[in-house]
């Protein structure tokens, strides 16, 4: 049997040849034909059985054949009629200059691009920019008249807050980059984009601030992005999984946010942002473990409040990982480790419970996870019903029926709440997942098992990197200068240095000695 396992592992190692057949239709690099009718023929065959693609032919100067190709719903039909069709169809005098110059001068469209290959034409049409083809010169124009329905900018649902901007990213990449640019107006904010996905051709943009970021990071991100060869990118999660440093870790090595202010602050710290068309979740890289425990509001509130809340979060993170396993371990192996009075009352409440503590804990934790998952998926109205049923079933009925002890319910409730205290949802899930192996270890080996689990997790975390940045930095390796944003949230007038992520570019982010004092403003310096 062991030999077979070995064989299986060996088979996996053989590298598969890339036998995938990418989208053939959109490959042609051929230039447009000189003949208008042949071009039209080509596009009609490309867009065969595409009922949403519109072909509108008309005559220029009453004699030259021309055609507009666009996708219904992606283009501004009003603008097209008003600015393109009416202008061109009313033109009667034959122009003396070459046709493309005439069109450039005549058309009141701000974004116009001359296209020469079929691939460019298809890209333009797919992006919603109507394609203007005309007879004679073997080229066409991509008219920047794309317009489609999009969601309004709303408050981010997954990352709410009391204080701070209420704007969130939306599904449209252009709007998202515009939001970034509105916050960071310097031209040093660079946004490079590329298209990923054979069929979806999703636009993916890397944003960074020139001079703050280590350029080798941008090179690395670009390279990793270009390695992605797949059918489609529907969400930034696809990209996240394809470019992580360690794909076998439960911990996220790239953070996602839907808040422009969080993205901007990361940019200012010298990180890079990856924006993906079609999702409000943008990626931030590189990150450290502690980034997952920081919320934007830590920086907007007074620093003392920020520090206290941050420590509360640290404590509850540990609780959400360890509380059920500690409870199980102490109850089954180390009864002498609890104060007598507490042990007696726990013994009293467990008296009627038919299960061992570990089984009881697993039942409750799994039920809680199920309820949480059900609550997330369901519409709001039913969601509240689920929570009522959950609270009644878990909280009361099971205790009254004697299936579960009351302290266990308290433990599960505290654990549940503490796992929601993580400001990054994804990090909370990682911790919640690890809770189950920890509970099994506690149920079999007691505190010894819990310690083994904690050590294993610590080793793993020390081993992890996010784009070359050690995951536990600045704690391990220790960088005392950066602890100001981990052990406490230093007041803004002391946050003088930027975190050192992959390089040492532009270390300081504010002038020194800005601590406010009375009368400071009126005094001459």
């Amino acid at each position, binding site marked *: 049997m062991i030999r077979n396992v070995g064989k299986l592992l060996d088979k996996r190692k053989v590298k598969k040849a890339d036998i995938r057949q990418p989208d053939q239709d959109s490959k042609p690099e051929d230039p447009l034909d000189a003949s208008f009718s042949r071009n039209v023929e080509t596009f009609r065959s490309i867009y065969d059985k595409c009922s949403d693609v519109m072909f509108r032919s008309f005559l220029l100067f009453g004699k030259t054949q021309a055609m507009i190709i666009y996708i219904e719903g992606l283009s501004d039909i009003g603008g097209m009629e008003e600015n393109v069709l009416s202008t061109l169809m009313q033109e009667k005098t034959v122009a003396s200059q070459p046709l493309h110059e005439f069109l450039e001068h005549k058309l009141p469209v701000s974004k116009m691009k001359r296209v020469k290959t079929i691939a460019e034409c298809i890209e333009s049409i797919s992006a919603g920019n109507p394609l203007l083809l005309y007879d004679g010169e073997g080229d066409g124009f991509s008219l920047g008249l794309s317009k489609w329905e999009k969601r309004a900018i709303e408050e981010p649902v997954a990352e709410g807050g009391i204080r701070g901007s209420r704007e969130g990213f939306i599904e449209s990449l252009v709007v998202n980059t515009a939001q970034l640019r509105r916050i960071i107006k310097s031209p040093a904010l660079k946004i490079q984009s590329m298209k990923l996905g054979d069929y979806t051709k999703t636009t993916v943009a890397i944003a960074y601030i020139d001079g703050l970021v280590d350029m080798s990071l941008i090179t690395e991100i670009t390279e990793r992005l270009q390695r992605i060869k797949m059918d489609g990118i529907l969400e930034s999660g696809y990209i996240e999984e394809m470019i992580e440093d360690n794909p076998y870790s439960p911990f996220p090595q790239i953070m996602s946010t839907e808040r422009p202010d969080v993205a901007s602050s990361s940019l200012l710290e010298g990180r890079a942002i990856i924006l993906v068309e079609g999702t409000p979740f943008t990626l931030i890289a590189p990150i450290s473990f502690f980034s997952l425990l920081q919320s934007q509001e830590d920086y907007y509130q007074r620093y003392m409040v920020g520090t206290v809340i941050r420590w509360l979060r640290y404590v509850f993170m540990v609780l959400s990982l360890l509380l059920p396993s500690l409870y199980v371990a102490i109850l089954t*192996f180390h009864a002498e480790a609890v104060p007598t009075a507490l042990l*007696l009352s726990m013994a009293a409440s467990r008296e009627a419970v038919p299960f061992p*503590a570990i089984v009881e804990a697993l039942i409750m934790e799994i039920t809680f996870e199920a309820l949480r998952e059900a609550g997330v998926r369901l519409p709001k109205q039913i969601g509240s019903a689920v929570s009522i049923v959950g609270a009644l079933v878990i909280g009361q009925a099971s205790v009254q*029926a004697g299936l579960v002890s009351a302290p266990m319910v308290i433990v599960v409730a505290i654990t549940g709440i503490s796992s929601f205290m993580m400001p990054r949802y994804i990090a909370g899930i990682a911790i919640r997942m690890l809770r189950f192996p920890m509970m099994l270890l506690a149920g*079999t*080996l007691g505190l010894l098992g819990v310690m083994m689990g904690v050590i294993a997790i610590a080793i793993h975390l020390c081993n992890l990197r996010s784009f070359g940045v050690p995951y536990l930095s600045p704690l391990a390796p220790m960088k005392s200068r950066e602890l100001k944003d981990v052990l406490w949230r230093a007041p803004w007038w002391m946050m003088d240095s930027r975190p050192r992520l992959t390089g040492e570019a532009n270390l300081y982010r504010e002038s020194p000695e800005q601590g406010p004092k009375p009368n400071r403003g009126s005094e001459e310096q």
Partner: protein
Amino acid sequence: MIKERGRVTVREKVNRHKSISIILLLLLTIPFMSGCWDRVEINDLAIVTAASIDKKDDGSIELSIQVFIPKSISSGGGEGGPSQGAGGATTLVKSDVGSNLSEALSKLQGKVPRKVFWGHCKVFVFGEGLAKEGIQEQLDFLLRHPQPRERANVYVSKGKGKAILESLPPLENYSGEVIKELSDLHLGLRVTLHNLDEMLTGNSQAVALPFIKILPPAKGEAKLQGIPYIFGTALFERDKMTGTMTEKETRGLLWLKDDMESYTVTLKPEGIEGLISINPISSRVRIIPYIVNGNWRVSVKVDTEGTVIQNGTKLNLTVPKSLKIAERTYQKDVEKRIRLTLLHLQGNGDDVIGLAKEFYRKYPKQFSEAENDWERIFEEMEVEVDVTSHIRRQGYINKPAGLPEKEVKDR
């Protein structure tokens, strides 16, 4: 050459995979092989809250344990909080006899359906009969066994220890808790298993343990509702009980051991009508041994501060002169108590204060020579008691309460 090397690497890889998978499988078995089997749920534990060890007339050892009954304070799966029945006992006492403690225990285990768990037993009571014949043999079990705590308190009961366990105190959950709480008040001696072991192996080889008995139930209380309380001290020579000390003498012993915490000294100042009560708030006791010309002497220096808690005289204690009177009376009283205790100890020849250790530390050579003669030396030793006392606080009021201004004496 290169090809061959490549082949070797592949074979090595295969081997490495095999070994990794073997290690993984072995690791997987760890949880199933070890922990599960000695896992004990709380439901399967008989939590011992107190234990007593008695000697029967036929020389056998009787072990009694007070076991907590979880059902008694549980909601039993029903509604409402802990419903503690008025008459319902929270503990049950089981006992069995054996030729020694461990045999008694193994027999006793046969009568209790759950595994006896010593981890929370904080009270061990030795019956008077056993104490008089020696406790060392049974102590060995308690210190050797991994579960009983070294910080558990040890007592000697007047009469049989089992009676202490059987009482059903109305205020606390079980009688073990009552004695433990009383010990925590520092009104009597507080000796743990660890202390006991230290005293037995120490230089003086004398032990003092708190002596407890049942306070008979008051009128209207049920028969078993009497509670155990500490009423004195049992004195041991080596591991055998030789005598007792009264409550009053115990106080002096507490002074000598620097363990005075909360008790009230009530004094009658000389030549003045009425009583003053004082609570010592801090005390520092130094025991200085010295040998002068072959004479073994010890000087006890006590530095104590007190607070007035009741003033029944007409003295105005804010006046330094009157305060001096009170302080001097306080000082005399403490000195008297200490002397009384020392007298008793010396008469008995029980060095429970640990003077032997003090001498050994300061004069190791002389002590080693005189060690065999220590008891005689102790009995004949000259003791100086030197008490300094101050009254620092007087509570909320200064002058005696409810006394017209002119009647207050300033003297």
